[in-house]
């Protein structure tokens, strides 16, 4: 080509001539919202056929506790995604909580240790939110840097040794029973109910959706956008900390690799449940369905006796599928 200037017709030819039909847009939107719950039902039926062991009471309790922990963490992740940010430091915060509570209870009261843990989590969330909203750092870089930093701090402190026994209180809130339900599940239910009420019925919740849907519009409407972003990050880190405490109560000791999967899983659960990266779309019911999908799939790998690397592939597949679906959905809806 000898000329850098294209004829208008050539330009027009290069601009996408893709005109999606209304039916396609509607279909993809429905798929984005409902693929997780539908997949849940299919997997539950499938499990009954190919792996009846899945419905053992002990296995069900394991699934319920894993569901609760991931559910608490993913709820926080959803909040952050709703304001167009992302938090890749949840796994580090989650592991940090266990270390703080287990290692500082010698001499201190557990109450103090828990307050300390939540304060540190809030500070980490504040730092993430500050970097994202005030310094305009791309959220995944800011929070991934935070992940490396917090993980390094924890490992430098513990020297990578597994140690300590988990206090009774944490054992109680995760594997204890409330009626016929595991305590962890009850906690998940309370946390989610509170968050759903806030998101649906308070002006705070509407502001969060407004910030994600249209940040500059929200700013003009008088919403404190930066405060919402920072607040979502603080809430997310504190929920991750809470999830970590429940998880360490379930596992019983503090491990070097504790919680490393939770970044990817919490994002995958939120996204497959209908939350988009561009913010303002999604809700916690969808996230719960997404959490169930991931936990079921990962548990099936174990129950079926497949090699454990299938778990990685499974997580990756769910994430790729969900990200592609939600990206396409957002693209269609925003045209």
């Amino acid at each position: 080509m000898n000329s850098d200037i294209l004829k208008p017709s050539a330009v027009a030819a290069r601009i996408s001539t893709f005109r999606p039909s209304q039916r396609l847009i509607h279909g993809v939107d429905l798929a984005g919202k409902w693929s997780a719950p539908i997949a849940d039902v299919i997997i539950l039926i499938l499990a009954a056929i190919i792996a009846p062991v899945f419905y053992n009471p002990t296995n069900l309790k394991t699934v319920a506790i894993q569901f609760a922990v991931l559910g608490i963490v993913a709820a926080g992740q959803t909040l952050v995604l709703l304001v167009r940010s992302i938090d890749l430091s949840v796994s580090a915060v989650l592991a940090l909580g266990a270390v703080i509570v287990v290692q500082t209870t010698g001499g201190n009261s557990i109450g103090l240790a828990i307050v300390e843990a939540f304060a540190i989590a809030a500070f980490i969330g504040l730092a993430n939110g500050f970097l994202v909203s005030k310094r305009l750092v791309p959220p995944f870089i800011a929070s991934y840097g935070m992940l490396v930093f917090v993980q390094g701090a924890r490992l430098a402190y513990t020297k990578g040794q597994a140690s300590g026994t988990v206090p009774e209180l944490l054992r109680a809130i995760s594997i204890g029973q409330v009626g016929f339900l595991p305590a962890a599940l009850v906690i998940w239910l309370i946390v989610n109910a509170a968050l759903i009420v806030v998101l649906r019925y308070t002006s705070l919740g509407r502001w969060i959706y407004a910030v994600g849907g249209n940040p500059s519009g929200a700013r003009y409407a008088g919403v404190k956008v930066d405060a919402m972003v920072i607040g979502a990050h603080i809430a997310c880190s504190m929920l991750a900390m809470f999830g970590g405490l429940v998880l360490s109560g379930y596992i019983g000791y503090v491990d070097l690799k504790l919680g490393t999967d939770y970044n990817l899983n919490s994002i995958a659960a939120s996204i497959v449940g209908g939350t988009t990266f561009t913010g303002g779309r999604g809700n916690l019911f969808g996230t719960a369905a997404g959490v169930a999908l991931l936990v079921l799939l990962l548990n099936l790998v174990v129950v079926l006796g497949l090699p454990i690397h299938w778990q990685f592939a499974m997580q990756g597949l769910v994430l790729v599928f969900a990200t592609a679906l939600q990206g396409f959905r957002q693209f269609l809806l925003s045209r």
Partner: protein
Amino acid sequence: MSMQTERATAVSAMRWKKITTFVRNNASIVLIFGMILVLGIAATIVTEKFQNPSNLINIFRQSIVIGLIAIGQSAVILTGGADMSVAMVARIVALIVATIFAANNSSSALIVPLLLLGIAIGAVLGGFNGLLITRTHANPFIITFGVANILRGVNLAIATTPIRGIPPEFLKIYDSKIGIVPVNVLVMILVWVLAWLLTTRSRPGRAIFAVGGSERVARLSGIRVNRAMVLAYIFSGMCAALAGLFLLSRSGVGDPSAAEGMDFQSMVAVALGGISLYGGKGSMIGTLGGVLLLAILSNVFNLTQVNIYYQQLFLGMIVLIAVAVYKTPRSA
């Protein structure tokens, strides 16, 4: 007399202005090489071993693998995307090549075909990433993260223990020299020059910048946005594959934990080098500086025997400070 001094001050003011404009236009590059200089001086004060010629050469050699990955990553980040699958691409290439060598009695006749095969695998995986992103409009960072996880699973399916049986001729590639120039440094320089030419002198390369600046405007100007993006991901995949081959040649076994963490390290190198993580701004020269800075840092840590966990702590801290200090203005 007074006229002369006036003219002298005017000339020096002009010269000064020239320097300040240069610094302002290339702030990130000046900053990164300034930091390398400061770090180098600090390192020579802290430990005498640092300024050994053999140690300095070592720094270059150790930055080859991460450097190759970072060059590919730069092209992707310039489009406004990110490729988090590079480490797993490097690993899968190393493992597949090692497996084929092991299955064929480490026959040295296979070296050239397998080198080509490895790079082809990288290109295919990169192209897959690129098509996935351009066709579905998905978030590049997350979707390549997902691809990386799938590849992690596949890698574990290929091997969980080191694969032996690499022909000795293949291992020599890493240490061989042409004259006095090590081959690996030569390959790195070639790839860098190629990347530099691609991004500054070629039509698709300029398209990469345009897409990173504003995808919408680029599309409306008739630039082939999708083609530029897919090309960037293919280039990144090929660079990662090359890095994987060098890793294999260096370690001598198909290591199932090869390249761990290099996805993030490459992004850090690129970010330190001043390429805007929102895309569209920066240069390959900065990336080179970022890679060198990281290599010197880890070299100093090793020489002074800092605990590996503290190294991670420092790395995280440096990243957080760097991204907080760099201004990434975005007029939305």
